[in-house]
């Protein structure tokens, strides 16, 4: 998977590095990492529900944070585990805008192997940067 969990983060929580050739792939990898903190096998998640997503922010890192916050929101507000597909990242004036589709289903302890609970996407060590091979993001999650 195009993400790895990090050691050098606040000990009470978890952090990851996610990457992709394009910015969109990087964002999708970050979303996959966030879901992977909660659900062991992504393959167990059926695409029964879809929610359109649209977030914006002054900076790329905050745009990523707000996208990942959608995963956390749907988990608590609608009891849905969602992955994120069809990410599109663009610049509109002063803002970065991200559109995507959240795809998933209601949390089912009988079928979903449950791990931890992501409660917030933090600013800690948050970064999105271009690399020689594409894009890379660092995110720390409050669990």
């Amino acid at each position, binding site marked *: 998977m195009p993400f790895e969990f990090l050691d050098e983060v606040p*000990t009470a929580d978890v952090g990851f590095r996610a990457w992709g050739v394009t910015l969109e792939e990087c964002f999708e990898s970050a979303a996959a990492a966030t879901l992977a903190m909660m659900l062991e096998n992504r393959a167990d998640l059926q695409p029964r529900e879809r929610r359109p997503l649209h977030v914006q922010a002054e900076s790329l890192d905050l745009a990523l944070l707000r996208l990942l916050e959608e995963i956390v929101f749907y988990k608590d507000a609608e009891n849905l585990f969602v992955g994120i597909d069809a990410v599109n990242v663009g610049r509109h004036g002063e803002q970065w805008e991200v559109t995507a589709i959240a795809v998933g289903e209601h949390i089912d*302890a009988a079928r979903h192997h449950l*791990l*931890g609970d992501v409660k917030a996407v933090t600013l800690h060590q948050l970064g999105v940067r271009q690399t020689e091979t594409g894009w890379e993001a660092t995110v720390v999650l*409050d*669990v």
Partner: protein
Amino acid sequence: MAESTGARLRQRITQVDEAVWEIPSSAKPGMRVPARLFATRALLDQMDDAVFEQITNVAMLPGIVGQAICMPDGHWGYGFPIGGLAAMDPDTGVISPGGIGFDINCGMRLVRTNLVFDEIRDRIPELVDALYQRVPAGVGARGLLKLTDDQFRDIAMRGAHWCVEQGYGWPEDLEHTEERGAIAGADPERVSPRALDRGRSQVGTLGSGNHYLEIQVVRPESVYDAGAAEVMGLDRPNQVVIMFHCGSRGFGHQIASDYIQAFLPLMERKFGIKLPDRDLACAPFQSSEGQAYFAAMKCGINMSFANRQMILHCIREVFADQFGRDPHDLGMDMVYDVSHNTAKLEEHDVGGRRRRLLVHRKGATRAFAAGMPDVPGRLREIGQPVIIGGSMESGSYLLCGTASGRQAFFTTAHGSGRTMSRKQARKQFHGRRLEQDLKQRGIYVRTVSYAGLAEEAGAAYKDIDAVVAATQRAGLSTPVARFVPVGNVKG
């Protein structure tokens, strides 16, 4: 890089008293006050370099009074270290969500019973299984209450009072809860629809991570102050108590996230505040933004009190069902409920003058002394109860506040603090093996996530005995009794 700066700051630490250390305000440009750390030498040496970086950043906050303070269980957090404390002048100072924590009013509740260990020894698995069935825990868990939007807003305003009025508690529970179960000034209009949507179905859920519900026993040799213990309701050898640790769930987290992001773009542009760490996002307490967060934060505080009240109700129902006796008859009274993530307006003596201060406590527990007005009833004779939770393997403590706590705005530690990352703990420990190992040692555990259980292995945490001893040596709190776990529910 944070670590190398932290390592440099470690070199600037001097000893002030037996368990009191200081980093002078000259150690880093921008520090308005010194940083003061309460710890033994051993605990200080164990602290991450990031703690020194963070506590000296806290010392830069506008309006900070006295020192930026770190408790003996201090460890790497967001903005503030966990175990961080900052008292602010309410007129000139700031309010910072990082000084309260994402999990607003994360706290501990302790309940006594008339039962002794021999009465439960042979039925611990049944008892724990019943609690596991009854108290929703883990990711995706929903509370038992189906609340309308109006009802949830009511809970955000009235906290545990709402629960007691609905029949989910006893009036005396409120007397034994910090702030009497609800803090005045909560305004749900200051809370985003997102936060309300996240929290509405989570009232009465335990959570996950380091949140837990434990059945514990007070061994006679672990009662250090029999008189204080008796006042707190611990009055028989091998008494069974129940302790649980949880907070405001997604609700508090969303409130914190919303306001951190709201404050960020305003700090320099509107307020002229420049700080080295975005996690210290803040606003002047007297600004409309600062007051909005304060009113929203109070909603988080109240929801958390209601959360713990509902869980207590479930625990009483389980014990009543298991023992065929009314919970009153089982003596299931609350000892106390403490918060360890809050900001409150309090009066303190500073430099010979009585001052009103906004006290941020993040991963730190209020510990008022005997005689102080906010300590209720008979507890006022001995001081406010303090509950410091250890790991699921080590046990926990009941303490009380002490007069010498004035040196830290009557604050003490909250737990044992992690020393190992969750990733490392998952590599090193195996959840199911740990479960078996604990069972052999007389601790029966039920968990939603075995990966989560591995992360909570005792070896991932500091030594609770050392942390509590440090609070005593520093004069922040005094141990009353120690509890050993015999049953545990984890999310």
